[in-house]
Structures are given as C-alpha cells and as structure tokens.
C-alpha cells in the first residue's frame, strides 16, 4: 500500500517575516492558521488534528485549541529534531488523514526567533548533559560550529574552495531579491560579497548562515477525496456568488486591523500571500489543492543531533539519502521527474550535500548545478524560488512548504511556468524529512 496522492494540502497561510513581529508566537500561529483554513474553505470547527514541530515552542496544541474555541482533537502529535521536522509534520498529517484517524489536520511553525529566542543560541554556562556533554565543554556550542565540521570535510574531500558555498548564497539571495515578502527583498549579493563577509566558524561565513526571523506559516492537510470535495464546493459557492460574503466574514473576524503588515502597507489582504503572492491581489477563489506524492522521514547511521561525527563519511548526508530513497519509492519517481526543489538552507554546505543526496548531482558535484544555471528560475531544477532561509526568512523549513504549494498552484511571486512537481526538504544534520508535491494527480 502506498500513500502516494492519498492526501493533499488545501490551504496555506503566512504572516509577514520581520526582525520583530511585535506579537506572540501563539497569535501569529492563529493568524496564519485562520488564513490557511480560509484558503481551504474550512473553519476551525472542521479541524480534528494538529501536528507541530517540537523545538523551541512557547505553546502547545491545546493553546491553539482553546484560542480557536475547539473542544476536541482526535489526532495530535509533535515531531522532534528542530528543522528536520518541518515536512515530518505534514508526513504525520498524511498518515492521519489517509488512515481515517483525522479529517482535517493543521501543521504550522511560528517563531519570534529574531526578537525573542534564537534557535542557535548557546547556553550561558553551567553543566551540560545528554549529547551536548561531549561538545559544549570544548567550545563547539552552536549549529554553525557543528555544521562547520561537516563542511570542512566536504570541501576537503572534493577539493572545493568556499566559493562552492558562495554559489548557494548568491543564487538564493537572487531569488529573495525579487520576493517582496523576503527579509532580503531587493538585496542581492555577489560572490565578492560572500567572500568578503566575515567568518563565523570556518569554513562558514556570515552569508553561509541562515537569517533569524519572526513569522509564522501554516498548511492544512486533508485526504485527496476531501480535497476534491472542497474544490467542488468552492466551485459551487463561486457560482452561487456566496464566496465573497463568506470570506469577508472570515477576514472581518480574524484579521481586521491586526496585522502590522496589512495595516502598515495599505490594505493588502492577508490572503493575497497564499493566493497570489504580493502581486496577485484580486479574488482567485478558494486555493487549489496540491497533492502529496510522497511524505517521509529519514535518519542515518550513528545519528546524533547535528554531531553525527562517527559516521563513515562526513561528506554526505545519510539522513537525506534515506529520505530521498523513501520519497522516490513512494512517489514512483526518480530525480529526473522533479520539476523544482525547495531545499532547507540553514547553512550553504548542507544545500550542496542535500542536492547530492536527493540525486540531482553526484558526490561533490552539486556546485555544477549552480555554475551551469540549472537551479535558476529558468533552469531544469529551480531552487528555493522564494529566497529560502538565507533570503526570505528562517521558518525552520515551513516557508519552503508554503512556497512549494504556491508554485504548484501557479501563484508564486517568482513563478516558474507550468511546474508540476516539487521536492521539499527539511533540516539536515539531524533526523530529517521531505515531501514530493504534485500540482495534479
């Protein structure tokens, strides 16, 4: 039995991304969840499942429930290991709706990572237990430093210079530069900028490291059958001319005057982000369903949280290789079937290694994808079309999921014409996850 195309993402929501949201992570989660439900043509009372990421949260699913006036959840779950969990929340939701354990599952990520608590922040001192006891006392205290050990070995084994890392930075920032939602909108960088940016932990420079971001994203998962019913209902409502009124009520109730972004920029409706990007404006009706061709988690040998240094090779990402195998098996696809990729870009070297793990280049050969223009918007594998963590904002991989849905709906700012399939990957260096999404089945 396969879960291929048995579930779909029917709604997405996203707040603005900023350095200081000015509001709680709970509130931002509620804003984007309501937007996503509205996008799907659903209401909070329809939700019976919530799956969240485990790391660094200020609230639980019960806080969302209480805030939304919900009385019961049939399915709730938390996926561990930081940014590796993003697509894993969707995978868990797929399992729930495909098995009938839930009907409508909310997945989301909400962070005040820039203004409140940073993910990569080191502890101030004291005794450290668990896996950290082997690393923190030696001054290896942040994700950038843990990843640098892998990165140095990768560059060494394949004879690359740090310009290989700069290729990722320049490409992703280029895409962010044309995305008005991105923190680095209209701020492209050159290879010279990359090479001149200050060292963080060699071989990583500032421009190899993710931004820190305040913001939230949500995605609603239902069964494929329900997705088709929702689309049919949407069409019928539109014919009956009721849709404007329903949505008007939702916006009135959920958002009016509450979002600094919409309040400050003069009336861009919140739904425009998921429906039509910033340029989309107008009424496109209920969001189109995007089908989940594959959803998987994966790990590797001798796995630790970001410090799997006992593995045979540190020049590859075993967890991404394992996830890739399972995704292609489920989707009955090969890398050649993938039309675009949204690859988790916390640190540039792991983008190169992920592209190799997912089969788009041989070992050490991912830099060629950049040099040959294949990952540009007009290439055969457009990459991180929204500007990724390095340019749009760091939502622990959830921005990548939302962008994949927009691209497959044809509503992205940096839209790739006619794209049919998109790979989405989550954080690497930790147990990870991924999705293959399809525009239609």
């Amino acid at each position, binding site marked *: 039995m396969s879960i291929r195309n048995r579930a779909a993402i029917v709604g997405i929501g996203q707040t603005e991304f900023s350095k200081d949201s000015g509001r709680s992570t709970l509130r931002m989660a509620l804003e984007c969840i309501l937007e996503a439900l509205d996008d799907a043509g659903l209401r909070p009372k329809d939700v019976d499942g919530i799956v969240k990421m485990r790391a660094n949260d200020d609230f639980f699913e019960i806080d969302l429930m209480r805030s939304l006036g919900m009385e019961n959840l049939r399915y709730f779950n938390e996926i561990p290991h930081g940014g590796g969990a993003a697509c894993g929340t969707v995978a868990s939701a797929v399992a729930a709706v495909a098995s009938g354990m839930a009907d409508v599952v909310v997945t989301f990520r909400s962070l005040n990572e820039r203004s409140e608590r940073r993910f*990569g*922040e*080191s*502890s*101030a*001192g*004291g*005794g*450290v*237990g668990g*896996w950290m*006891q*082997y*690393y*923190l*006392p*030696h*001054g*290896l*205290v*942040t994700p*950038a*430093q843990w990843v*640098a*050990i*892998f990165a*140095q*070995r990768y560059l*060494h084994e394949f004879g690359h210079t740090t310009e290989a890392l700069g290729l990722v930075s320049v490409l992703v920032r280029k895409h962010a530069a044309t995305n008005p939602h991105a923190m680095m909108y209209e701020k492209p960088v050159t290879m010279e900028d990359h090479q001149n940016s*200050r*060292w*963080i*932990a*060699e*071989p*990583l420079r*500032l421009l190899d490291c993710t931004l820190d971001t305040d913001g939230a994203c949500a995605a609603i998962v239902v069964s494929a059958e329900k997705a088709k019913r929702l689309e049919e209902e949407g069409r019928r409502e539109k014919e009956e001319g009721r849709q404007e009124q329903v949505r008007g009520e939702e916006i009135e109730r959920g958002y009016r005057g509450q979002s600094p972004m919409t309040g400050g920029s003069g009336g861009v409706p919140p739904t425009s982000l998921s429906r039509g990007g910033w340029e989309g404006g107008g009424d496109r009706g209920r969001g189109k369903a995007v089908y989940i061709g594959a959803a998987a988690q994966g790990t590797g040998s*001798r796995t*630790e949280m970001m*410090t799997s*240094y*006992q593995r045979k090779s*540190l020049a590859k990402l075993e967890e991404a290789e394992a996830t890739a195998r399972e995704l292609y098996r489920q989707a009955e696809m090969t890398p050649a079937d993938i039309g675009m990729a949204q690859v988790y870009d916390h640190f540039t070297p792991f983008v190169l290694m992920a592209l190799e793990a997912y089969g788009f280049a041989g070992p050490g050969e991912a830099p060629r994808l950049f040099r040959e223009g294949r990952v540009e918007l007009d290439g055969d594998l457009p990459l991180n079309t929204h500007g990724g963590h390095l340019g749009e904002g760091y939502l622990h991989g959830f921005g990548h999921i939302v962008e994949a849905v927009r691209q497959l709906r044809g509503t992205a700012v940096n839209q790739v014409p006619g794209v049919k399939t998109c790979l989405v990957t989550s954080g690497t260096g930790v147990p990870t996850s991924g999705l293959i999404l399809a525009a239609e089945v």
Partner: protein
Amino acid sequence: MAEVVRPWPLADRDTGPFWEAQNRHELAFQRCAKCAHVRYPVGPTCPECLSFDFEWVQSSGRGEVYSYTVVQHQTHPAFSVPYTVVLAEMEEGPRVIAQLRGPEGARPEIGAKVRVEWEDGPHQALPVFVLDSGQRTS
C-alpha cells in the same frame, strides 16, 4: 567582566566512568567484552553485537585531524575567539572533539598527527589536542 566558567559535562549513569577517567587524564573508550568493538560516544550496549558487557580501555591519545573549524564569531562568553576545534580520528577508531592548542586560530592540515594533552578545570579535566612535532598549521 568576570570570567565565565566554561560549561562542563554533567556525568550520567552511563558516562560517569568516562569523565572520571578524564579527571585522571585518561581518554577512555568502551570495548565490547564479547566482540571487542570499540564504541564512542558512551552507551549501554554494543551496537555491533548488542552485548551489555564491556571494559574501559585507555586510548593511546594519538590520532589524526579528520576535520576542524576555526571559530571566529563569539557565541559563548566563556570561549574567546578565535579558537580551533578539531575532530580527530583516534588510533582506536572513534573520532573525538577537542580544542587545538598552539597559535590562536591555527588551521591544521587535515590528516595532521595530533596527540592529547590535559587541562584541568574547576569541574572537569578535559583533553586538548596538540600537533605532533613537525606538523604545520596555516
């Protein structure tokens, strides 16, 4: 600014003997009593044969630089930059993280020979690596 004490390991019921050995300036690994597999980090079972029985063996303290980073951006008050952290592959097999002593911010060559020396702290003695004589940094 008052000097901040470096974070120190909190030993647990598995790792206690490992840290006690370090306080005696010994780098110790577990060796499976059944199949002789040497394992690290510390754990209750042999991942090769699943035996719970093991003995502590002392490392020669010699290894090679497998990878490293020079930390340039300070993220912790107890660690002044620049400093070099080495992942060394020890002769017994396990790879161990420790700071490199020598010129500040030195970049060792991958493959360079290193040996363990010891530094005592208020809570825990920890190993550091030094390059064996004749090895260069850049």
